[in-house]
């Protein structure tokens, strides 16, 4: 049989550049499983892409609808942005009883959303990242920070949770100003941030979106010297484009110790895409998790395998890293438990979201270096 899996990401629209490496990550997992021939006694798996556009709830719903009703997918890897994810979950997945595993929707609101046990995410809620970020600043002795965030639920959510945590720990946010993605000109935003001042600038944005523009502007005008980069900013691009100018800046992203990521990056490189791009690894994990759950439930029916997702993700059992999906399928078939770790050290808590281990990084000698995990 051929099992279909939806890959529902924002291929067009303001986050269009983040989507391809994510899709490629997910498709790599799908291909790995499919090629192994071990899923449910030799089923193949095909990825079906859908465009959630990231900003257009109606289009996202329509795309989800098509995946479910036309392509009859057994599950959806996605969606990408929290807004689109919520729309698809409520309008498509829940009515049709389809499982969704999002690699990147991080809005805290998704934690408590009614989901009939159908929704999971390999990304942590932003509530947690805010805490981590605040700790990091305080430890470095930075008591005054300016914050700018990309104006969507992710940016605002993370900025708010940071501000709250930071204040509680004795920090002071001089300004918390939104920036719109995809605008190109950020002179006005940079000017305001500079005027408010602060010892560091927290950029809750996307590296190939407004975040980059803000960073460029802040550097060029000499407004700030130290920057804090949450997940959306940490990538190869940051190192390539800004490396020498941001020595001493730091950041953090949902990630884990261990070799999962390294393996994954190697695999991605071989496949010809940038695995370090935000949430690419998470997408691989989301797809793999869903397929392993199917194997564990011995069914492609979402209503059945949805109950196995947590089990596969959290162990106990042998730890599974990227590239080992074939082995995992075998183990599950033999009835042995597995603990899927994947690229991002998957460990789902609560309602089915990543617990959130974070990797702290610092830019030293023009390179992103990992300082520690927490």
């Amino acid at each position, binding site marked *: 049989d051929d099992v279909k899996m939806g890959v529902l990401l924002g291929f*067009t629209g303001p986050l269009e550049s983040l989507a391809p490496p994510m899709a490629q990550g997910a498709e790599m997992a799908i291909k790995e499983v499919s090629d192994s021939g071990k899923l449910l006694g030799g089923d193949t798996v095909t990825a079906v892409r859908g465009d959630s556009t990231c900003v257009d709830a109606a289009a996202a719903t*329509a795309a989800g609808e098509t995946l479910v009703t036309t392509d009859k997918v057994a599950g959806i890897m996605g969606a990408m942005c*929290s807004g689109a994810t*919520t*729309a698809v979950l409520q309008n498509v997945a829940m*009515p*049709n009883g389809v499982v969704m595993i999002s690699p990147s929707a991080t809005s805290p609101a998704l934690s408590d*959303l009614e989901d009939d046990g159908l929704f999971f995410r390999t990304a942590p809620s932003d509530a947690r990242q805010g805490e981590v970020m605040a700790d990091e600043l305080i430890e470095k002795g930075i008591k005054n920070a300016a914050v700018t965030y990309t104006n969507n*639920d992710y940016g*605002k959510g993370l900025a708010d949770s940071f501000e709250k945590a930071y204040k509680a720990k004795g920090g002071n946010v001089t300004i918390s100003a939104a920036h719109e993605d995809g605008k190109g000109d950020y002179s006005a935003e940079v000017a305001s941030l500079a005027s408010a001042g602060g010892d560091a600038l927290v950029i809750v944005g996307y590296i190939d979106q407004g975040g980059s523009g803000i960073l460029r502007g802040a550097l060029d005008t000499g407004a700030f010297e130290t920057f804090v980069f949450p997940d959306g900013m940490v990538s190869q691009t940051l190192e390539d484009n800004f490396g020498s100018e941001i020595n001493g800046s730091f950041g953090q992203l949902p990630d884990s110790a261990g070799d999962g990521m390294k393996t994954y990056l190697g695999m991605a490189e071989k496949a010809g895409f940038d695995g370090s791009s935000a949430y690419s690894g998470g997408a691989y994990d989301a797809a793999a998790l869903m397929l392993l759950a199917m194997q564990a439930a011995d069914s492609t029916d979402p209503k059945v395998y949805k109950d196995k997702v947590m089990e596969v993700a959290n162990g106990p059992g042998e730890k599974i890293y990227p590239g080992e999906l074939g082995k995992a399928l075998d183990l599950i078939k033999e009835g042995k438990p597995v603990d899927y770790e994947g690229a991002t050290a998957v460990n789902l808590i609560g309602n089915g979201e990543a617990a959130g281990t974070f990797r702290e990084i610092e830019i030293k000698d023009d390179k992103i270096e990992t300082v520690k995990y927490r």
Partner: protein
Amino acid sequence: MSSNRQAGETSRLRAPLFFAIMAALILLEGFTSGWNSALGILNMGLLSAIMALGVNMQWGYAGLFNAGAMGFLALGGLAPVLISMPPTPGAFSGGGPGIMAAFFVAIVAVLAAVWIWRNLRGKTRGLAVTAVLIVGFFTYRWLFDPAVEVIEAINPSAQGNLGGLGLPTLISWPVGAVLAAGAAWLVGKTALGLRSDYLAIATLGIAEIIVAILKNEQWLDRGVLNVNGIPRPWPVPYEIDLQNSPDFVAQMQSWGFDPQLGSTIVVKLAFLVLFVIVILALIWLTEMSLKSPWGRMMRAIRDNEISAAAMGKNVTRRHLQIFVLGSAVIGLAGAMMISLDGQMTPTSYNPLRYTFLILVMVIVGGSGNNWGSILGGVLIWYVWVKAGDWGPDIMGALAAPFPDGGFKDHLIQSAPHMRMLVMGIILLMVLRFSPRGLLPEK
């Protein structure tokens, strides 16, 4: 003359023909991709048709180029949030008085400024107006900011806004229309004197402003944090409830349907019925007006404003009237859309989708013709959705002759952008081969 009559006859056949094609496409979608998807497209298509009707009233009847459909749509979408969401406990008592006082101050300041502007002359006028506005602004902020802070502090991850009145969602539809109409009235009062293309840009800007407000005023609608779980309008049921209802399951099984599939289809049909009722009512109202002296007067004004004024028609008033009415219809569609989606996401309003696509619908359908707007709305929405599906296939076919490798991959990666290409080409084709739209105004 005789050739005239012939043209008349073909155009009489045209509308049924195109509606038949539209129905056939939807049916085809149903048979090939399932009824869920077909009904999904039809529902959203009908919503788009209502939006197109509103734009058509302004553009088609009166020649007012409103490029701000997005704004009125978004404003209409605020209604379900304010009307049908449950109230946030403590929000109104905490911040309500402050906000109301702030708005009161703002209105008084503006009225005072207007009064001064009208009644004073000379240099003092400018100074006085500026002074009043500045004092007003700071008082407003002084009242407004703390109130907002209180509201936004209440359970920010799920609420943090005023919340709604907890009333039935159906009520929010007319309220959406009224909200949009109110904004349109304000806009119209200031911007309608402008030339047509300036009006377009002004409305384009106003739409951006409205969306910016919806995005940034968290106390009102949670801003970019989105509002989820907006209740469905009566009598649309929830799929889960249907699936859990033994009666429904039994009924479906007796008909040989999968209950789950059945539930999703029933829900969509329920929405469909609501939408069709609204559309029929709107069509009746608009057709009646268009076919009467009122419609004739509007066309006259569209043709030549100066002359219409010389013939005793109050052009400004009429423009305002149609601008407000058209915007109300757009607002209505906005409220309906939010109750269909079940969530309000201000970031999703972008001009390409909600202004230009709607304009395309009106033009493709045939401006000035209500049936054309309906046709355009559904057809274009169909294409917009399907183009996303066709994209990879088309691209695959296009890329096939190339050797495997970077370039081919690049092309295949680009498949999603086919939607834009297809949309553009369709629009160009229609404009080329049927420039007055598929169903031209008679």
